């Protein structure tokens, strides 16, 4: 399953760090952050609950970029 979320982040490097963090999160198969359109596209593992996984993704992202926001 793939879903796209709106995000808020200030710098391009932080965006690419968020992408790395999201990819490593449990339940995420693949993630792409598009800094230009401020969107995060997440492909979930089968059977994963997007809502719950996104909570973990946000936590992981906050660790590297305290200011970031993901609207899920």
């Amino acid at each position, binding site marked *: 399953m793939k879903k796209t979320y709106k995000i808020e982040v*200030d*710098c*391009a*490097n932080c965006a*690419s760090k968020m992408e790395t963090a999201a990819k490593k999160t449990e339940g995420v198969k693949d993630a792409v952050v*598009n800094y230009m*359109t401020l969107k995060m596209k997440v492909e979930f593992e089968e059977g994963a609950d997007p809502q719950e996984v996104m909570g973990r993704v946000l936590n992981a992202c906050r660790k590297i970029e305290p200011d970031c926001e993901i609207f899920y």
Partner: protein
Amino acid sequence: MTKKQKSKLYRIIICIILMIVFMLLPVEGIVKFALLLIPYLIIGYDILIKAGKGIINRQPFDECFLMALATVGALIIAVTTGGDYLEAIAVMLFYQIGELFESYAVGKSRRSISELMDIRPDYANIETDGKLERVDPDEVEPGTVIVVQPGEKVPIDGIVTEGRSTLDTAALTGESLPRDVSEGDEVISGCINQSGLLKIRTTKEFGESTVSKILDLVENASSRKSRSEDFITRFARIYTPAVVFGALALAVFPPLINMLILSGDPAWISWIYRALTFLVISCPCALVISIPLSFFAGIGGASRDGILIKGSNYLEMLSKTKTVVFDKTGTLTKGVFEVVSVEPQGIEKDELISIAAAAEQYSSHPIAMTIKKADKSNVRKKAENIEELAGHGINAVIDGSRISVGNAKLMNMKGIKVPEYEGGGTVVYAAENDKYIGRIIISDVIKPTSAEAVKRLKTCGVTKTVMLTGDHSGAAKETAEKLKIDEVYYELLPSDKVEKTEELLAAKGRGETLVFVGDGINDAPVLSRADIGIAMGAMGSDAAIEAADIVLMDDDPVKLAKAIRISRKCLRIVKENIRVSIGIKLICLLLGALGIANMWIAIFADVGVMVLAVLNSIRCLFIKKL
């Protein structure tokens, strides 16, 4: 400006004013330092807080942390050696100015690019009880009748049920070629209704309509990352740690060597200062921002011109195009047959056409349709005993004479002698009572811009042009010659086209791109097999938008050269940015290590380079003159 940006701007202004005021005050030493700490904290408090969070979260290579370390370090050095307090504050100040500029410039280009692509309709009109009601296009079910007034955008694909008007397709194709529509015509969303009121029965949901598909495609394009972007991401990942470790080494080893081996003055302060200079240059932001921004701008600009590029990676590959393979019908030619020449023998031209049209009057073969269209006589002759021989032609009796209309095989079968014909197109022979009375040549018409398109391709780095066609050799060679195409392969079945394309792919050099251009109808396998598949004239054709990597909305082949030019400009800018940013940073690192560059130069390397790179990226947007 957003709220966040405004507050940063105020902080920058206040900081500058305070700095000037405090510098003019007649105080010295520790009092001055204490006063100058105020603007420092005003401008840098958020960085310091973030740096603290970075430490807690064990993110040692966080930019804020490094910036905080560099400025605090510089302040301490200034206090202990009685040096320049201003420097540390200025570094923080410029860093913030850079951040503000970055977020402003990116936000601005984000907006202007989305404006470029602003073809999204905001509402649809539905008539209820004689009154128009505006609704969200998302809520309109297929089969609903919507009303589009003059000046409004067609929100959803559909069929005109009432009214006639002219549609402006500029938003989709980049060229304002008005299209007349009337009852029964299909219309696609994104066009602007210019003259009359139209009632349209929708055939699709909004999400499936052309305009939504295009928007999706362009918005998602920058998610497919190019190799340049991957390179930069990888570079950024090692750059920051490398610079930090470099700084550490610079702070520790030279003084130790000085002290232990050369038994001289360790000069700790000087080396630590140089190390802090390193930290200021450690942020890779200039690079990381400018590359996707360039691609985004290039893709946005191209879409305004009716060139839809599905990903940054395709834009990148397109710039290395060396071989262009064309499908003939519908790409270089109009895909519509026309009578190009009538060569009667013993009778009038019009007479020949009208006899042929009469014989073929019940046939629905494309060639028959073309001849019937060319027949200008008011009343069609009556034909009797019509006999259609598949693959040959037609025998009939017209005005008491036995008429045969068909190809060379039919003439052969009947033992009728016909003159030799060598040339392009399809030949239809006619005979009256077994006597040859003339021939009609039918051919696909070359688009007026095809020759120009091939010529322009040659000026933008393409070394080989190839044409693939199912036509027989005469027609194929003639077209190729007219258009000055280098190689032509004819009498190909669709599967042969894939095979030929594979041969060409094997023949090209490494790092070169092979582009296949087709009209998207029945050439999907080739479109996907080529390095880049370009579908042309795709307005409204879902299949083509799906199968191709790049879509040209109108069917003008000249756009091909333009697409390649856009990609080359974009890539040139990307490379400039990569080289200049990395180059300046490395030079500054070197100068910093040698003690020549101070923090002022270092902050220029960081912020100045980023500003330059961002401004340079925005140039990708301007492609009108290409």
